[in-house]
Each structure stands twice: as structure tokens, then as C-alpha cells.
């Protein structure tokens, strides 16, 4: 059976540096940081007091008072970004065969704030289990695609992928494969996360995963810099409309890029630490290239996982050198997490969007906050430091890795007009 071709026909984003695609892209290429002191709760006793929160978006206005009570923030973000992507795709919701439209979404955690608040209420009570009836349906990670389908009537495949920080890359790969195999014509994919909560910050702090650069939050996310000290937690959502190529062509859709392939692997090593030799990361890029039918030399740019942690950044770059050999030195390598922070389950989606827009605009967003070279990093690699670089990008790779050792990788190709 011949696999169908899959293209991207719509994009949507709600991120700490921009509340729609246009704002997101402008911020990416101007090197804007989304990191600032946390406003959601009192951080006095927290080791890390800053994060990349969503800013200046009126969710009460967007959803109305009744609707918003039924939605955890991670589901609100999912609806906002997917609304933008669906509108951007120009799909006619009146005429499209809704049984052929699916929603495959990524969320690493789900409704963490809802879980936290309900359990706090219970713990503060007399032991009577007076849980809100919306507790479970608001919290569960699959409710985001559930709500997207309810809003638009999409009746195709519908579920959430959970692989920590690789979640939305896994969602994208599943969406790619279901369309390739002919299960659906269109799949709304992407991911969302809203873990900037007491439980989220406290939990990641306990793992020593977060930067504690409290005196300079905007400079805290500094992938590949010698003085990086952990990731900066971010939140938000990215959405992509994946569509079967002939279906997109038949309706005269604008096409951003072709999704050429996806790779998946596991470190099989440790719950949270990356494998020091990067063997799983090498495997995921190699099997992604194979899946896409490409050679390493075909790739122009890589948006790395690059979270700004001491171990992870070095292991990933070593793996890139191993996979790409001398060609690695000609690649534009970057980490947009230097600006957005780490959106966990939404990272794969917003970074895939960054890669696609880099192809569209022939401009690679920078890795900001780089001050001091790390002697463990090959100085000949082009890490797109501090300033966007003009570059004709025909093939872009996006890497995401999750706690649990999950690795996912996606390849996009510019499509001739």
C-alpha cells in the first residue's frame, strides 16, 4: 500500500512570547525572552520564582464565565491555539467530512492546577470526599482533544499522547501516520501544557531541573552557554493542521510544508537523566531520516530539544555530530527554548511551528542568552547564537525528548508552490 503524502495547512500558537502565530514569529526572530517573575501565586518559599507565563490574554472574555469553569488552563490553551489553526487552514467546517477529521493532541501532564486545587480542598476538609464533579473531566490529559472535537464536531480519531516533553511531537507523528495510512484526511494536532502551578514548580524544583537564576529571569534560559543551570518552565499551546496532500490541493489550501517523517526511540536508561552517550538520541534522528527517506546531508536546520540543562544540551549536540558527521558544521542549530522556556508537552508543537516558519521566511530564530562558550561543545557548530540568521531552509528537523527517556524527532520539507 502506498503511503499518502501529508502537509501542514494551518498553524496556531499561544506562547509566553506571543499569543498568536504572527506575534510568536516576531518575538522569535527578535530574540525576545518570555521569562519573568511568577504572577500566579506567592513564590516566597519557592527556590525558583520565575517562569514563562502566558501574558495579556483575556480568557474570561474568550470563553465566557460558564465555559471557563469547565476548562483547566491546559484545555483553554488548546482551544485557543486550535481555533487559530483551524481558521488559518481555511477548512470549510460546513462541507468537510467530519468523520474524516481527527484530533491527536499532546499533553505531558494535563490539568495539574485542577488536581492540585481539588486535593488541597480535600486535605483541608474533615475527610469527607466532596470533590467537584468537574474535577476528573477537567484534569484528564485527553480532555483537550475531547473539547476540540466537541467544539467543531470532528468525529475522527481522537486521543492524547503522553510522553512528557516529547508528547506533542508524538502526537504529530501519530497524526502523520494516520493520514499516511488513509484513516483520516485532516488531523488537528499539537499540544498544550499549564504546569506553572505550586505543584509544578515545587515538583520540578525538587528534581533540581529548573534554573534558579532569580536575579535575572530573562537570562535564565541559556542553552549551550557554559553557565546554564537548568530549564525555565513555560506554558501554552501550539496547533498544526495536518492534511492529506491531494485533499489540501483539491480545496486550494495554502501549504506551509510537507511532513516528511517521524522518528521515535527510547533511552532505556534512567527516569530523568539523559543517556550520557546519547545513544537513544542518535537512534531517533537516524530512524527519522530513514522514515523520511532522506540523507543527513539533506538537512539544513535543527531546532534542538536544548533545554538549558547541564547534561542534556551536551549529549544532544554530541549525538548530532555523530549522526551528521562533518555536515553538522554546516547546519543551523538552535534552541527556541532560550526564548519560550520549556513548554513540556507543548514543546514539540511550538518548536515544529518555529521550524516551519523558519523555512517559510528563510530565517532561523536565534539561541539567545549565550555569553560564555562551553568547552564541552564543539566550537565549529553553528548554534545560531543571539541573533537570527538568514538561511534558505529546505529541510528542517525538530527534536524533543521527555522524562522517561522518550525521544521523538520530526522532519519537514519546504514544498514547491
Amino acid at each position, binding site marked *: 500500500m502506498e503511503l499518502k503524502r501529508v502537509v501542514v495547512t494551518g498553524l496556531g500558537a499561544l506562547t509566553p512570547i506571543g499569543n498568536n502565530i504572527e506575534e510568536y514569529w516576531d518575538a522569535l526572530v527578535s530574540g525576545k525572552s518570555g521569562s519573568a517573575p511568577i504572577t500566579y501565586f506567592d513564590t516566597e518559599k519557592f527556590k525558583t520564582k520565575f517562569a514563562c507565563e502566558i501574558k495579556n490574554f483575556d480568557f474570561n472574555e474568550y470563553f465566557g464565565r*460558564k*465555559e471557563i469553569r469547565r476548562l483547566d488552563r491546559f484545555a483553554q490553551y488548546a482551544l485557543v491555539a486550535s481555533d487559530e489553526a483551524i481558521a488559518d487552514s481555511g477548512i470549510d467546517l460546513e462541507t468537510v467530512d467530519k468523520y474524516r477529521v481527527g484530533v491527536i493532541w499532546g499533553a505531558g501532564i494535563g490539568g495539574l492546577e485542577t488536581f492540585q486545587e481539588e486535593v488541597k480542598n480535600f486535605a483541608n476538609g474533615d475527610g469527607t470526599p466532596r470533590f467537584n464533579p*468537574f474535577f476528573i473531566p477537567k484534569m484528564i490529559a485527553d480532555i483537550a482533544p475531547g473539547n476540540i472535537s466537541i467544539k467543531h464536531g470532528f468525529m475522527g480519531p481522537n486521543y492524547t499522547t503522553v510522553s512528557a516533553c516529547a508528547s506533542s511531537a508524538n502526537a504529530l507523528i501519530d497524526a502523520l501516520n494516520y493520514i499516511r495510512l488513509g484513516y483520516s484526511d485532516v488531523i488537528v494536532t499539537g499540544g498544550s501544557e499549564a504546569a506553572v502551578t505550586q505543584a509544578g514548580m515545587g515538583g520540578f524544583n525538587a528534581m533540581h531541573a529548573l534554573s534558579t537564576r532569580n536575579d535575572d529571569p530573562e537570562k535564565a534560559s541559556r542553552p549551550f552557554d557554559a553557565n546554564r543551570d537548568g530549564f525555565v518552565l513555560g506554558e501554552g499551546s501550539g496547533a498544526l493542521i495536518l492534511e492529506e496532500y491531494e485533499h489540501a490541493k483539491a480545496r486550494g489550501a495554502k501549504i506551509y510544508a510537507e511532513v516528511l517523517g517521524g522518528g521515535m526511540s527510547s533511552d532505556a536508561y534512567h527516569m530523568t537523566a539523559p543517556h550520557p552517550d546519547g545513544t537513544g538520541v542518535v537512534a531517533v534522528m537516524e530512524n527519522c531520516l530513514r522514515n523520511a527517506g532522506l540523507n543527513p546531508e539533506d538537512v539544513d536546520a535543527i531546532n534542538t530539544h536544548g533545554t538549558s540543562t547541564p547534561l542534556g544540551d551536551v549529549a544532544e549536540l554530541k549525538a548530532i555530530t555523530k549522526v551528521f558527521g562533518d555536515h553538522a558544521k554546516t547546519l543551523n542549530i538552535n534552541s527556541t527554548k532560550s526564548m519560550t522556556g520549556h513548554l513540556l508537552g507543548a514543546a514539540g508543537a511550538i518548536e515544529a511551528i518555529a521550524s516551519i516558519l523558519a523555512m517559510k521566511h528563510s530565517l532561523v530564530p536565534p539561541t539567545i542568552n549565550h555569553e560564555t562558550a562551553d568547552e564541552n561543545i564543539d566550537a565549529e557548530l553553528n548554534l545560531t547564537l543571539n541573533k537570527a540568521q538568514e538561511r534558505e531552509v529546505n529541510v528542517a528537523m525538530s527534536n524533543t525528548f521527555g522524562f522517561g527517556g522518550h525521544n521523538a524527532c520530526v522532519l519537514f520539507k519546504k514544498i514547491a508552490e
Partner: protein
Amino acid sequence: MSDIASRVKAIIVDKLGVDENEVVNDASFTNDLGADSLDTVELIMEFEKEFDIQIPDDQAENIATVGQAISYIEEAKK
């Protein structure tokens, strides 16, 4: 309007996001005020909390309108 009636109506306005003048005694939670099964459970729980009473499930099933909620609570608080 009695104190109980105004407190009941305030809860309904808050939880269902409806306009105050829609919350009349014979308005049905599900048919008139847009509540689904989860909203209805939440309303009953809010009444229990607000008035410090217990409403057993078999009796909660009989509270389907604003007026029925007010009468039940007035009876329970006697």
C-alpha cells in the same frame, strides 16, 4: 424574596453563568438554564455547602427546578 431563595439564586447565577432574571421558580436547571448532568451535581454540592445540609442522592434527583431547590432547603433548615 426570602434569604434562602436569594442565596439559592445567587449560587445558580454563579455556577451556570445565567442571567439573574432567568432564574425564576419554575425554571428547570437542564431544560431552561442549560445545565448538564455535571452542573446539576455541582449545584447540589454547592447547596449542601452553603446551607450546611446533606442532600441524599435519591432526594437530589427530585430537585430539578429553582423552586424545588428553595422548598427543599427551606424544609431542611426548619
